[in-house]
Protein backbone atom coordinates (compact mmCIF):
# COMPACT_ATOMS: atom_id res chain seq x y z
CA UNK A 1 0.00 0.00 0.00
CA UNK A 2 1.76 3.14 -1.10
CA UNK A 3 1.77 6.30 0.93
CA UNK A 4 -1.54 7.73 1.96
CA UNK A 5 -1.31 11.24 0.56
CA UNK A 6 -0.41 10.60 -3.10
CA UNK A 7 -2.91 12.09 -5.56
CA UNK A 8 -4.55 8.85 -6.63
CA UNK A 9 -4.50 7.44 -3.11
CA UNK A 10 -6.91 4.55 -2.64
CA UNK A 11 -9.28 4.63 0.31
CA UNK A 12 -7.74 1.59 1.92
CA UNK A 13 -5.10 3.42 3.91
CA UNK A 14 -3.78 1.55 6.94
CA UNK A 15 -4.81 4.34 9.31
CA UNK A 16 -8.46 4.20 8.32
CA UNK A 17 -8.41 0.43 8.24
CA UNK A 18 -7.20 0.06 11.82
CA UNK A 19 -9.45 2.80 13.08
CA UNK A 20 -12.62 1.35 11.55
CA UNK A 21 -11.93 -2.24 12.51
CA UNK A 22 -10.94 -1.15 16.00
CA UNK A 23 -14.19 0.78 16.27
CA UNK A 24 -16.11 -2.27 15.10
CA UNK A 25 -14.49 -4.54 17.67
CA UNK A 26 -15.01 -2.09 20.53
CA UNK A 27 -18.61 -1.60 19.46
CA UNK A 28 -19.12 -5.34 19.42
CA UNK A 29 -17.77 -5.71 22.93
CA UNK A 30 -19.89 -2.83 24.18
CA UNK A 31 -22.99 -4.41 22.73
CA UNK A 32 -22.76 -7.43 24.96
CA UNK A 33 -21.40 -5.78 28.07
CA UNK A 34 -23.74 -2.77 28.43
CA UNK A 35 -26.50 -3.23 30.99
CA UNK A 36 -28.75 -0.67 29.33
CA UNK A 37 -30.44 -1.97 26.17
CA UNK A 38 -30.35 1.38 24.36
CA UNK A 39 -26.64 1.74 24.98
CA UNK A 40 -25.98 -1.65 23.43
CA UNK A 41 -28.23 -0.72 20.48
CA UNK A 42 -26.18 2.43 19.90
CA UNK A 43 -22.99 0.42 20.15
CA UNK A 44 -24.38 -1.98 17.54
CA UNK A 45 -25.05 0.97 15.26
CA UNK A 46 -21.45 2.11 15.62
CA UNK A 47 -20.29 -1.38 14.70
CA UNK A 48 -22.55 -1.52 11.66
CA UNK A 49 -21.42 1.87 10.42
CA UNK A 50 -17.75 0.98 10.81
CA UNK A 51 -18.39 -2.23 8.87
CA UNK A 52 -19.97 -0.06 6.17
CA UNK A 53 -16.74 1.95 6.19
CA UNK A 54 -14.77 -1.27 5.70
CA UNK A 55 -16.95 -2.13 2.68
CA UNK A 56 -16.10 1.25 1.21
CA UNK A 57 -12.46 0.44 1.63
CA UNK A 58 -13.02 -2.76 -0.31
CA UNK A 59 -14.30 -0.56 -3.15
CA UNK A 60 -17.84 -1.86 -2.74
CA UNK A 61 -19.79 1.40 -2.31
CA UNK A 62 -23.11 -0.18 -3.21
CA UNK A 63 -22.87 -2.72 -0.40
CA UNK A 64 -21.82 0.05 2.00
CA UNK A 65 -24.82 2.15 1.00
CA UNK A 66 -27.17 -0.79 1.44
CA UNK A 67 -25.56 -1.58 4.78
CA UNK A 68 -26.26 1.93 6.02
CA UNK A 69 -29.81 2.03 4.75
CA UNK A 70 -30.92 -1.45 5.70
CA UNK A 71 -29.01 -2.05 8.89
CA UNK A 72 -28.24 1.27 10.51
CA UNK A 73 -31.24 3.16 9.18
CA UNK A 74 -33.90 0.46 9.10
CA UNK A 75 -33.36 -2.46 11.42
CA UNK A 76 -31.70 -0.55 14.24
CA UNK A 77 -34.56 1.96 14.31
CA UNK A 78 -37.00 -0.92 14.71
CA UNK A 79 -34.73 -2.39 17.40
CA UNK A 80 -34.99 0.86 19.31
CA UNK A 81 -38.74 0.87 18.71
CA UNK A 82 -39.06 -2.52 20.35
CA UNK A 83 -36.81 -1.53 23.22
CA UNK A 84 -38.89 1.56 23.89
CA UNK A 85 -42.26 -0.14 23.62
CA UNK A 86 -41.44 -3.19 25.66
CA UNK A 87 -40.96 -2.55 29.31
CA UNK A 88 -37.19 -3.05 29.52
CA UNK A 89 -36.77 -2.40 33.24
CA UNK A 90 -38.09 -5.87 33.89
CA UNK A 91 -35.64 -7.42 31.43
CA UNK A 92 -32.68 -5.72 33.08
CA UNK A 93 -33.54 -7.42 36.36
CA UNK A 94 -32.80 -10.91 35.01
CA UNK A 95 -29.38 -12.25 35.84
CA UNK A 96 -26.75 -10.89 33.48
CA UNK A 97 -24.88 -13.98 32.42
CA UNK A 98 -27.11 -16.95 32.73
CA UNK A 99 -25.91 -20.41 33.53
CA UNK A 100 -25.15 -21.76 30.10
CA UNK A 101 -22.20 -19.46 29.36
CA UNK A 102 -19.63 -22.28 29.05
CA UNK A 103 -21.54 -23.70 26.08
CA UNK A 104 -21.47 -20.24 24.58
CA UNK A 105 -17.71 -20.08 25.07
CA UNK A 106 -17.14 -23.39 23.32
CA UNK A 107 -19.24 -22.31 20.36
CA UNK A 108 -17.27 -19.06 20.11
CA UNK A 109 -13.94 -20.89 20.11
CA UNK A 110 -14.95 -23.29 17.35
CA UNK A 111 -16.06 -20.34 15.26
CA UNK A 112 -12.72 -18.64 15.89
CA UNK A 113 -10.90 -21.82 14.81
CA UNK A 114 -12.91 -21.89 11.60
CA UNK A 115 -12.00 -18.30 10.74
CA UNK A 116 -8.31 -18.81 11.38
CA UNK A 117 -8.12 -21.99 9.34
CA UNK A 118 -10.06 -20.38 6.46
CA UNK A 119 -7.62 -17.49 6.49
CA UNK A 120 -4.51 -19.64 6.63
CA UNK A 121 -5.55 -22.12 3.93
CA UNK A 122 -7.26 -19.63 1.73
CA UNK A 123 -4.31 -17.20 1.61
CA UNK A 124 -3.91 -18.00 -2.04
CA UNK A 125 -7.41 -16.72 -2.75
CA UNK A 126 -6.54 -13.20 -1.69
CA UNK A 127 -4.49 -11.17 -4.17
CA UNK A 128 -0.94 -10.97 -2.90
CA UNK A 129 0.74 -7.92 -1.60
CA UNK A 130 0.29 -5.04 -3.96
CA UNK A 131 -2.87 -3.69 -5.54
CA UNK A 132 -2.65 -3.11 -9.31
CA UNK A 133 -2.84 0.63 -8.68
CA UNK A 134 -2.19 3.05 -11.49
CA UNK A 135 -1.17 6.56 -10.57
CA UNK A 136 -3.98 9.15 -10.65
CA UNK A 137 -6.79 6.62 -10.92
CA UNK A 138 -9.50 7.37 -8.43
CA UNK A 139 -11.70 5.20 -6.36
CA UNK A 140 -14.41 4.93 -9.00
CA UNK A 141 -12.12 3.43 -11.63
CA UNK A 142 -10.65 1.01 -9.12
CA UNK A 143 -14.12 -0.05 -8.07
CA UNK A 144 -15.11 -0.51 -11.68
CA UNK A 145 -11.98 -2.52 -12.27
CA UNK A 146 -12.65 -4.80 -9.35
CA UNK A 147 -16.41 -5.09 -9.16
CA UNK A 148 -17.66 -3.28 -12.20
CA UNK A 149 -20.34 -0.63 -12.22
CA UNK A 150 -22.85 -0.38 -9.44
CA UNK A 151 -25.36 -1.67 -11.91
CA UNK A 152 -23.44 -4.94 -12.11
CA UNK A 153 -25.06 -5.74 -8.79
CA UNK A 154 -28.43 -4.78 -10.29
CA UNK A 155 -27.93 -7.00 -13.26
CA UNK A 156 -27.08 -9.96 -11.06
CA UNK A 157 -30.02 -9.68 -8.69
CA UNK A 158 -32.59 -9.18 -11.43
CA UNK A 159 -30.72 -11.17 -14.03
CA UNK A 160 -29.47 -14.52 -12.96
CA UNK A 161 -30.75 -14.58 -9.43
CA UNK A 162 -34.35 -13.30 -9.82
CA UNK A 163 -35.78 -16.50 -8.39
CA UNK A 164 -33.76 -16.19 -5.19
CA UNK A 165 -34.77 -12.53 -5.01
CA UNK A 166 -38.48 -13.40 -5.23
CA UNK A 167 -38.21 -16.08 -2.57
CA UNK A 168 -36.52 -13.66 -0.22
CA UNK A 169 -39.27 -11.09 -0.70
CA UNK A 170 -41.89 -13.75 -0.05
CA UNK A 171 -40.14 -14.66 3.19
CA UNK A 172 -40.15 -11.04 4.28
CA UNK A 173 -43.85 -10.74 3.49
CA UNK A 174 -44.63 -13.71 5.72
CA UNK A 175 -42.55 -12.20 8.50
CA UNK A 176 -44.43 -8.89 8.27
CA UNK A 177 -47.84 -10.60 8.30
CA UNK A 178 -46.78 -12.64 11.33
CA UNK A 179 -45.78 -9.53 13.22
CA UNK A 180 -49.03 -7.77 12.38
CA UNK A 181 -51.20 -10.69 13.46
CA UNK A 182 -49.30 -11.15 16.68
CA UNK A 183 -49.77 -7.60 17.87
CA UNK A 184 -53.13 -6.65 16.44
CA UNK A 185 -55.67 -8.35 18.67
CA UNK A 186 -58.71 -7.71 16.53
CA UNK A 187 -58.09 -7.15 12.86
Amino acid at each position, binding site marked *: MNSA*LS*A*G*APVATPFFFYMLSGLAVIGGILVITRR*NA*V*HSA*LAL*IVTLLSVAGLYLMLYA*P*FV*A*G*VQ*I*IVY*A*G*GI*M*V*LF*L*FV*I*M*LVNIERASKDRRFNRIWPIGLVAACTLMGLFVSAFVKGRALFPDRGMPLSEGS*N*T*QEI*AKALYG*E*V*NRAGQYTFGQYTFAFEIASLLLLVAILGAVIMTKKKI
Partner: protein
Amino acid sequence: MPNFIMSYLGSTLTPGQAGNQFWALIYVLIIFAGVSVAVIAMNWIERKALAHFQIRLGPMRVGPHGLLQPFADALKLMLKEDIIPSEADQFVFWVAPLIGLLAAFTVYTVIPFGPSQAVSDMNIGILFMLGVSSLGVLGIVVAGWASNSHYPLIGALRSSAQMVSYEVAMGLAVVSAIVMTSLNSTGTGTLSMIGIVQAQQQQGVWFIFKFFPLGFIAFGIFAIAMVAETNRAPFDMAEAESELTAGYHTEYSGLRWSLFMLAEYAAMIAVSSIAVTLWLGGWMRPFPNLLHAPAWDFIFSLFPGLTFGALAAIALLGTVRMPSHSFFKIQRVGLAVFAGLLGLIALLLLVIAVAGRSADSGLAARFNDGIGYVYWFVLKVSVFMYLFIWYRATWPRYRFDQLMKIGWKVMLPISLGVLVVTAIVGVIF
Protein backbone atom coordinates in the same frame (compact mmCIF):
# COMPACT_ATOMS: atom_id res chain seq x y z
CA MET B 1 2.67 21.49 -1.11
CA PRO B 2 1.61 24.39 -3.38
CA ASN B 3 1.45 22.11 -6.42
CA PHE B 4 -0.82 19.91 -4.40
CA ILE B 5 -3.15 22.82 -4.13
CA MET B 6 -2.73 24.23 -7.61
CA SER B 7 -2.88 20.83 -9.34
CA TYR B 8 -6.49 20.42 -8.41
CA LEU B 9 -7.60 23.84 -9.62
CA GLY B 10 -7.20 22.82 -13.22
CA SER B 11 -9.08 19.55 -12.96
CA THR B 12 -12.82 19.38 -13.49
CA LEU B 13 -13.32 16.60 -10.97
CA THR B 14 -14.74 16.94 -7.51
CA PRO B 15 -12.07 16.83 -4.78
CA GLY B 16 -13.37 13.44 -3.64
CA GLN B 17 -12.96 11.98 -7.08
CA ALA B 18 -9.54 13.51 -7.47
CA GLY B 19 -8.63 12.04 -4.11
CA ASN B 20 -7.46 15.48 -2.99
CA GLN B 21 -8.15 15.64 0.75
CA PHE B 22 -7.05 19.24 1.12
CA TRP B 23 -9.57 20.65 -1.29
CA ALA B 24 -12.20 18.27 0.01
CA LEU B 25 -11.68 19.82 3.42
CA ILE B 26 -11.95 23.32 1.94
CA TYR B 27 -15.18 22.37 0.18
CA VAL B 28 -16.55 20.86 3.38
CA LEU B 29 -15.84 24.05 5.26
CA ILE B 30 -17.38 26.20 2.51
CA ILE B 31 -20.52 24.06 2.41
CA PHE B 32 -20.97 23.97 6.17
CA ALA B 33 -20.44 27.70 6.44
CA GLY B 34 -22.94 28.15 3.61
CA VAL B 35 -25.48 25.88 5.27
CA SER B 36 -25.21 27.62 8.63
CA VAL B 37 -25.64 31.01 6.95
CA ALA B 38 -28.61 29.54 5.13
CA VAL B 39 -30.04 28.27 8.43
CA ILE B 40 -29.63 31.69 10.01
CA ALA B 41 -31.25 33.36 7.01
CA MET B 42 -33.98 30.72 7.01
CA ASN B 43 -34.70 31.42 10.68
CA TRP B 44 -35.20 35.12 9.92
CA ILE B 45 -37.15 34.58 6.73
CA GLU B 46 -39.45 32.02 8.38
CA ARG B 47 -40.35 34.37 11.20
CA LYS B 48 -40.88 37.37 8.93
CA ALA B 49 -42.76 35.51 6.17
CA LEU B 50 -44.96 33.68 8.68
CA ALA B 51 -45.70 37.00 10.35
CA HIS B 52 -46.67 38.69 7.10
CA PHE B 53 -48.95 35.74 6.29
CA GLN B 54 -50.65 36.41 9.60
CA ILE B 55 -51.03 40.18 9.14
CA ARG B 56 -48.38 41.01 11.75
CA LEU B 57 -44.87 42.41 11.46
CA GLY B 58 -42.64 39.76 12.93
CA PRO B 59 -39.42 40.67 14.72
CA MET B 60 -38.74 44.38 14.24
CA ARG B 61 -36.87 45.36 17.35
CA VAL B 62 -33.54 43.54 17.21
CA GLY B 63 -31.65 45.25 14.40
CA PRO B 64 -33.35 46.84 11.40
CA HIS B 65 -36.46 44.81 10.55
CA GLY B 66 -35.30 42.15 13.01
CA LEU B 67 -32.21 41.28 10.96
CA LEU B 68 -30.18 40.57 14.08
CA GLN B 69 -32.95 38.40 15.55
CA PRO B 70 -31.34 35.07 14.58
CA PHE B 71 -28.10 36.10 16.25
CA ALA B 72 -30.02 37.22 19.29
CA ASP B 73 -31.77 33.85 19.39
CA ALA B 74 -28.50 31.98 19.00
CA LEU B 75 -26.96 34.00 21.82
CA LYS B 76 -30.00 33.49 24.01
CA LEU B 77 -29.94 29.75 23.45
CA MET B 78 -26.26 29.61 24.29
CA LEU B 79 -26.77 31.52 27.50
CA LYS B 80 -29.84 29.56 28.53
CA GLU B 81 -29.36 26.97 31.22
CA ASP B 82 -28.88 23.53 29.74
CA ILE B 83 -31.01 21.32 31.98
CA ILE B 84 -30.55 17.56 31.89
CA PRO B 85 -33.45 15.84 33.68
CA SER B 86 -32.19 13.90 36.68
CA GLU B 87 -33.81 10.63 35.64
CA ALA B 88 -32.54 10.99 32.05
CA ASP B 89 -29.86 8.70 30.69
CA GLN B 90 -26.92 11.13 30.65
CA PHE B 91 -24.91 9.70 27.78
CA VAL B 92 -27.82 8.99 25.48
CA PHE B 93 -29.37 12.39 26.27
CA TRP B 94 -26.10 14.01 25.21
CA VAL B 95 -25.63 11.91 22.08
CA ALA B 96 -29.14 12.24 20.61
CA PRO B 97 -28.87 15.77 19.14
CA LEU B 98 -25.43 14.89 17.78
CA ILE B 99 -26.83 11.92 15.85
CA GLY B 100 -29.53 14.17 14.45
CA LEU B 101 -27.00 16.80 13.46
CA LEU B 102 -24.59 14.23 12.02
CA ALA B 103 -27.31 12.74 9.84
CA ALA B 104 -28.50 16.15 8.66
CA PHE B 105 -25.04 17.40 7.70
CA THR B 106 -23.35 14.31 6.19
CA VAL B 107 -25.92 14.49 3.38
CA TYR B 108 -24.20 17.64 2.12
CA THR B 109 -21.03 15.78 1.15
CA VAL B 110 -22.81 14.44 -1.89
CA ILE B 111 -25.01 17.37 -2.94
CA PRO B 112 -23.68 18.84 -6.25
CA PHE B 113 -23.68 22.64 -6.43
CA GLY B 114 -22.00 22.42 -9.82
CA PRO B 115 -20.40 19.89 -12.18
CA SER B 116 -17.30 19.87 -10.00
CA GLN B 117 -18.60 21.77 -6.98
CA ALA B 118 -19.39 18.91 -4.56
CA VAL B 119 -17.34 17.50 -1.76
CA SER B 120 -17.18 14.11 -3.46
CA ASP B 121 -19.13 12.47 -6.22
CA MET B 122 -19.77 8.95 -4.95
CA ASN B 123 -21.16 6.63 -7.53
CA ILE B 124 -23.77 5.63 -4.94
CA GLY B 125 -24.71 9.28 -4.30
CA ILE B 126 -28.48 8.86 -3.86
CA LEU B 127 -28.15 5.59 -1.94
CA PHE B 128 -25.74 7.21 0.50
CA MET B 129 -28.06 10.15 0.93
CA LEU B 130 -31.14 8.05 1.68
CA GLY B 131 -29.10 5.94 4.07
CA VAL B 132 -27.82 8.88 6.04
CA SER B 133 -31.18 10.62 6.17
CA SER B 134 -32.65 7.47 7.66
CA LEU B 135 -30.05 7.79 10.42
CA GLY B 136 -31.75 11.03 11.43
CA VAL B 137 -34.64 8.97 12.80
CA LEU B 138 -32.27 7.41 15.33
CA GLY B 139 -31.50 10.79 16.82
CA ILE B 140 -35.17 11.47 17.46
CA VAL B 141 -36.00 8.02 18.78
CA VAL B 142 -33.11 8.05 21.18
CA ALA B 143 -33.86 11.62 22.29
CA GLY B 144 -37.44 10.68 23.12
CA TRP B 145 -36.31 7.67 25.07
CA ALA B 146 -33.56 9.43 26.96
CA SER B 147 -35.90 12.10 28.39
CA ASN B 148 -37.54 9.32 30.36
CA SER B 149 -41.03 10.83 30.59
CA HIS B 150 -44.44 10.15 29.06
CA TYR B 151 -44.77 12.82 26.44
CA PRO B 152 -41.32 12.73 24.82
CA LEU B 153 -41.58 8.94 24.62
CA ILE B 154 -44.86 9.11 22.70
CA GLY B 155 -43.60 12.03 20.62
CA ALA B 156 -40.47 10.10 19.68
CA LEU B 157 -42.44 6.97 18.76
CA ARG B 158 -44.79 8.98 16.62
CA SER B 159 -42.18 10.92 14.71
CA SER B 160 -39.99 7.88 14.08
CA ALA B 161 -42.95 5.85 12.81
CA GLN B 162 -43.82 8.77 10.55
CA MET B 163 -40.28 9.16 9.20
CA VAL B 164 -39.84 5.46 8.60
CA SER B 165 -43.08 5.16 6.67
CA TYR B 166 -42.41 8.22 4.53
CA GLU B 167 -38.84 7.13 3.83
CA VAL B 168 -40.26 4.21 1.90
CA ALA B 169 -42.38 6.44 -0.31
CA MET B 170 -39.45 8.83 -0.73
CA GLY B 171 -37.11 6.02 -1.73
CA LEU B 172 -39.47 4.74 -4.39
CA ALA B 173 -39.98 8.21 -5.81
CA VAL B 174 -36.20 8.60 -6.00
CA VAL B 175 -35.89 5.23 -7.75
CA SER B 176 -38.34 6.30 -10.43
CA ALA B 177 -36.20 9.39 -11.04
CA ILE B 178 -33.10 7.21 -11.35
CA VAL B 179 -34.91 4.96 -13.81
CA MET B 180 -35.29 8.05 -15.97
CA THR B 181 -31.57 8.73 -15.92
CA SER B 182 -30.85 5.44 -17.60
CA LEU B 183 -32.65 6.37 -20.80
CA ASN B 184 -29.81 8.37 -22.30
CA SER B 185 -27.74 7.02 -25.15
CA THR B 186 -25.49 4.80 -23.05
CA GLY B 187 -28.52 2.99 -21.60
CA THR B 188 -27.06 2.59 -18.14
CA GLY B 189 -28.43 4.87 -15.46
CA THR B 190 -26.32 6.29 -12.64
CA LEU B 191 -26.76 6.77 -8.94
CA SER B 192 -24.25 9.56 -8.69
CA MET B 193 -25.83 12.94 -8.18
CA ILE B 194 -23.65 14.76 -10.68
CA GLY B 195 -24.36 11.99 -13.16
CA ILE B 196 -28.10 12.51 -12.74
CA VAL B 197 -27.89 16.21 -13.44
CA GLN B 198 -25.66 15.57 -16.41
CA ALA B 199 -28.21 13.02 -17.65
CA GLN B 200 -30.86 15.73 -17.48
CA GLN B 201 -28.56 18.05 -19.32
CA GLN B 202 -27.91 15.51 -22.07
CA GLN B 203 -31.58 14.64 -22.40
CA GLY B 204 -32.32 18.35 -22.47
CA VAL B 205 -35.29 18.02 -20.14
CA TRP B 206 -35.80 18.36 -16.41
CA PHE B 207 -37.03 15.03 -15.05
CA ILE B 208 -40.09 16.77 -13.68
CA PHE B 209 -41.26 17.27 -17.27
CA LYS B 210 -40.06 13.92 -18.64
CA PHE B 211 -42.90 11.56 -19.79
CA PHE B 212 -45.02 14.43 -18.59
CA PRO B 213 -47.37 13.10 -15.89
CA LEU B 214 -44.95 10.52 -14.49
CA GLY B 215 -42.07 12.79 -13.63
CA PHE B 216 -44.45 15.27 -12.08
CA ILE B 217 -46.23 12.66 -9.95
CA ALA B 218 -42.95 11.24 -8.72
CA PHE B 219 -41.84 14.77 -7.90
CA GLY B 220 -45.13 15.43 -6.10
CA ILE B 221 -44.73 12.33 -3.97
CA PHE B 222 -41.18 13.25 -3.11
CA ALA B 223 -42.24 16.80 -2.24
CA ILE B 224 -44.90 15.53 0.18
CA ALA B 225 -42.69 12.81 1.64
CA MET B 226 -39.90 15.32 2.17
CA VAL B 227 -42.18 17.53 4.26
CA ALA B 228 -43.13 14.53 6.36
CA GLU B 229 -39.52 13.38 6.60
CA THR B 230 -38.49 16.61 8.27
CA ASN B 231 -41.55 16.74 10.58
CA ARG B 232 -42.69 20.03 9.11
CA ALA B 233 -45.94 21.83 8.38
CA PRO B 234 -48.98 19.62 8.03
CA PHE B 235 -47.08 16.61 9.33
CA ASP B 236 -45.50 18.16 12.41
CA MET B 237 -46.97 15.55 14.71
CA ALA B 238 -43.82 15.33 16.76
CA GLU B 239 -44.00 18.81 18.15
CA ALA B 240 -47.77 19.18 18.04
CA GLU B 241 -47.93 21.77 20.74
CA SER B 242 -51.61 21.35 21.33
CA GLU B 243 -51.39 17.69 22.29
CA LEU B 244 -48.11 16.37 23.53
CA THR B 245 -46.50 19.51 24.79
CA ALA B 246 -43.42 19.60 22.59
CA GLY B 247 -42.82 16.07 21.43
CA TYR B 248 -39.42 14.50 21.67
CA HIS B 249 -37.48 17.64 22.50
CA THR B 250 -39.60 18.62 25.51
CA GLU B 251 -36.83 18.03 28.01
CA TYR B 252 -34.16 19.76 25.98
CA SER B 253 -33.24 23.34 26.58
CA GLY B 254 -30.56 25.86 25.72
CA LEU B 255 -27.89 24.97 23.21
CA ARG B 256 -28.88 21.31 23.09
CA TRP B 257 -32.35 22.26 21.94
CA SER B 258 -30.94 24.59 19.30
CA LEU B 259 -28.95 21.66 17.91
CA PHE B 260 -32.25 19.97 17.17
CA MET B 261 -33.50 23.10 15.45
CA LEU B 262 -30.27 23.35 13.47
CA ALA B 263 -30.62 19.69 12.47
CA GLU B 264 -34.22 20.27 11.39
CA TYR B 265 -33.39 23.24 9.19
CA ALA B 266 -30.30 21.52 7.76
CA ALA B 267 -32.41 18.45 6.97
CA MET B 268 -34.97 20.68 5.27
CA ILE B 269 -32.33 22.27 3.05
CA ALA B 270 -30.72 18.87 2.35
CA VAL B 271 -33.97 17.20 1.37
CA SER B 272 -35.05 20.05 -0.89
CA SER B 273 -31.64 20.07 -2.57
CA ILE B 274 -32.14 16.35 -3.34
CA ALA B 275 -35.45 17.24 -4.93
CA VAL B 276 -33.81 20.02 -6.94
CA THR B 277 -30.99 17.75 -8.11
CA LEU B 278 -33.26 14.91 -9.10
CA TRP B 279 -36.17 16.67 -10.73
CA LEU B 280 -35.34 20.31 -11.35
CA GLY B 281 -32.00 19.93 -13.06
CA GLY B 282 -29.61 20.78 -10.20
CA TRP B 283 -27.33 23.62 -11.13
CA MET B 284 -28.52 24.04 -14.71
CA ARG B 285 -29.82 27.42 -15.64
CA PRO B 286 -33.34 27.37 -17.15
CA PHE B 287 -33.61 26.42 -20.88
CA PRO B 288 -29.95 25.35 -21.24
CA ASN B 289 -30.58 23.67 -24.56
CA LEU B 290 -33.15 25.94 -26.14
CA LEU B 291 -31.41 29.20 -25.53
CA HIS B 292 -27.75 28.24 -25.61
CA ALA B 293 -26.54 31.14 -27.74
CA PRO B 294 -23.69 33.02 -26.02
CA ALA B 295 -25.94 36.10 -25.75
CA TRP B 296 -28.42 34.10 -23.67
CA ASP B 297 -25.54 32.73 -21.58
CA PHE B 298 -24.51 36.28 -20.84
CA ILE B 299 -28.02 37.34 -19.90
CA PHE B 300 -28.44 34.43 -17.57
CA SER B 301 -25.04 35.05 -16.05
CA LEU B 302 -26.21 38.53 -15.11
CA PHE B 303 -28.99 37.14 -12.94
CA PRO B 304 -26.93 36.66 -9.75
CA GLY B 305 -25.78 40.24 -9.87
CA LEU B 306 -29.27 41.52 -10.60
CA THR B 307 -30.86 39.65 -7.70
CA PHE B 308 -28.34 40.98 -5.23
CA GLY B 309 -28.90 44.42 -6.73
CA ALA B 310 -32.63 44.06 -6.22
CA LEU B 311 -32.06 43.03 -2.58
CA ALA B 312 -29.83 46.03 -2.07
CA ALA B 313 -32.52 48.28 -3.55
CA ILE B 314 -35.16 46.84 -1.20
CA ALA B 315 -32.88 47.41 1.75
CA LEU B 316 -32.27 50.99 0.64
CA LEU B 317 -36.02 51.50 0.30
CA GLY B 318 -36.28 50.22 3.86
CA THR B 319 -33.85 52.85 5.09
CA VAL B 320 -35.79 55.60 3.34
CA ARG B 321 -39.09 54.52 4.82
CA MET B 322 -37.62 54.16 8.31
CA PRO B 323 -39.43 56.61 10.68
CA SER B 324 -37.28 59.60 11.56
CA HIS B 325 -37.44 59.12 15.34
CA SER B 326 -34.00 59.18 16.98
CA PHE B 327 -34.46 55.61 18.23
CA PHE B 328 -34.46 54.47 14.62
CA LYS B 329 -31.24 56.28 13.74
CA ILE B 330 -29.06 53.32 14.58
CA GLN B 331 -31.39 50.96 12.73
CA ARG B 332 -31.33 53.22 9.71
CA VAL B 333 -27.53 53.19 9.69
CA GLY B 334 -27.50 49.42 10.15
CA LEU B 335 -29.83 48.91 7.25
CA ALA B 336 -27.85 51.30 5.07
CA VAL B 337 -24.67 49.31 5.77
CA PHE B 338 -26.48 46.08 4.94
CA ALA B 339 -27.78 47.60 1.73
CA GLY B 340 -24.26 48.74 0.90
CA LEU B 341 -22.91 45.26 1.43
CA LEU B 342 -25.53 43.74 -0.85
CA GLY B 343 -24.85 46.40 -3.44
CA LEU B 344 -21.14 45.62 -3.29
CA ILE B 345 -21.76 41.92 -3.88
CA ALA B 346 -24.08 42.74 -6.75
CA LEU B 347 -21.41 44.93 -8.32
CA LEU B 348 -18.78 42.24 -7.90
CA LEU B 349 -21.00 39.62 -9.53
CA LEU B 350 -21.81 41.91 -12.41
CA VAL B 351 -18.13 42.64 -12.98
CA ILE B 352 -17.31 38.93 -13.00
CA ALA B 353 -20.19 38.26 -15.37
CA VAL B 354 -18.95 40.92 -17.79
CA ALA B 355 -15.33 39.80 -17.46
CA GLY B 356 -16.33 36.14 -17.84
CA ARG B 357 -18.16 36.90 -21.05
CA SER B 358 -15.18 38.43 -22.80
CA ALA B 359 -12.42 35.97 -21.86
CA ASP B 360 -14.10 32.71 -22.71
CA SER B 361 -11.83 30.26 -20.90
CA GLY B 362 -9.88 32.22 -18.34
CA LEU B 363 -10.15 32.07 -14.58
CA ALA B 364 -12.96 34.67 -14.73
CA ALA B 365 -15.04 32.48 -17.06
CA ARG B 366 -14.65 29.43 -14.82
CA PHE B 367 -15.45 31.56 -11.80
CA ASN B 368 -18.48 33.06 -13.58
CA ASP B 369 -19.86 29.63 -14.46
CA GLY B 370 -19.24 28.46 -10.89
CA ILE B 371 -21.26 31.37 -9.55
CA GLY B 372 -23.99 30.72 -12.09
CA TYR B 373 -24.29 27.07 -11.07
CA VAL B 374 -24.41 27.79 -7.38
CA TYR B 375 -26.84 30.68 -7.90
CA TRP B 376 -29.39 28.66 -9.86
CA PHE B 377 -29.14 25.75 -7.45
CA VAL B 378 -29.66 27.97 -4.41
CA LEU B 379 -32.51 29.80 -6.12
CA LYS B 380 -34.40 26.55 -6.71
CA VAL B 381 -33.76 25.36 -3.15
CA SER B 382 -35.05 28.66 -1.77
CA VAL B 383 -38.30 28.15 -3.68
CA PHE B 384 -38.76 24.95 -1.69
CA MET B 385 -37.88 26.75 1.52
CA TYR B 386 -40.63 29.27 0.81
CA LEU B 387 -43.05 26.37 0.24
CA PHE B 388 -42.17 24.95 3.68
CA ILE B 389 -43.09 28.25 5.30
CA TRP B 390 -46.23 28.61 3.20
CA TYR B 391 -47.40 25.14 4.26
CA ARG B 392 -46.84 26.04 7.91
CA ALA B 393 -48.95 29.17 7.61
CA THR B 394 -51.97 27.71 5.89
CA TRP B 395 -52.35 24.05 6.74
CA PRO B 396 -53.78 22.68 9.98
CA ARG B 397 -52.12 19.53 11.30
CA TYR B 398 -52.91 15.98 10.28
CA ARG B 399 -53.89 13.54 12.99
CA PHE B 400 -51.32 10.82 13.48
CA ASP B 401 -53.33 7.93 12.10
CA GLN B 402 -54.41 9.96 9.04
CA LEU B 403 -50.77 10.76 8.47
CA MET B 404 -49.82 7.09 8.56
CA LYS B 405 -52.80 6.19 6.40
CA ILE B 406 -51.63 8.65 3.73
CA GLY B 407 -48.08 7.40 4.04
CA TRP B 408 -48.89 3.75 3.55
CA LYS B 409 -52.17 3.64 1.69
CA VAL B 410 -51.77 6.59 -0.66
CA MET B 411 -48.15 7.51 -1.18
CA LEU B 412 -46.68 4.03 -1.32
CA PRO B 413 -49.02 2.58 -3.97
CA ILE B 414 -48.77 5.69 -6.13
CA SER B 415 -44.97 5.75 -5.98
CA LEU B 416 -44.86 2.03 -6.81
CA GLY B 417 -47.21 2.62 -9.71
CA VAL B 418 -45.19 5.56 -11.00
CA LEU B 419 -42.02 3.46 -10.76
CA VAL B 420 -43.48 0.60 -12.77
CA VAL B 421 -45.05 2.83 -15.40
CA THR B 422 -41.86 4.87 -15.79
CA ALA B 423 -39.89 1.69 -16.31
CA ILE B 424 -42.35 0.45 -18.92
CA VAL B 425 -42.54 3.80 -20.71
CA GLY B 426 -38.77 4.00 -20.54
CA VAL B 427 -38.43 0.64 -22.25
CA ILE B 428 -40.95 1.50 -24.97
CA PHE B 429 -39.58 4.89 -25.96
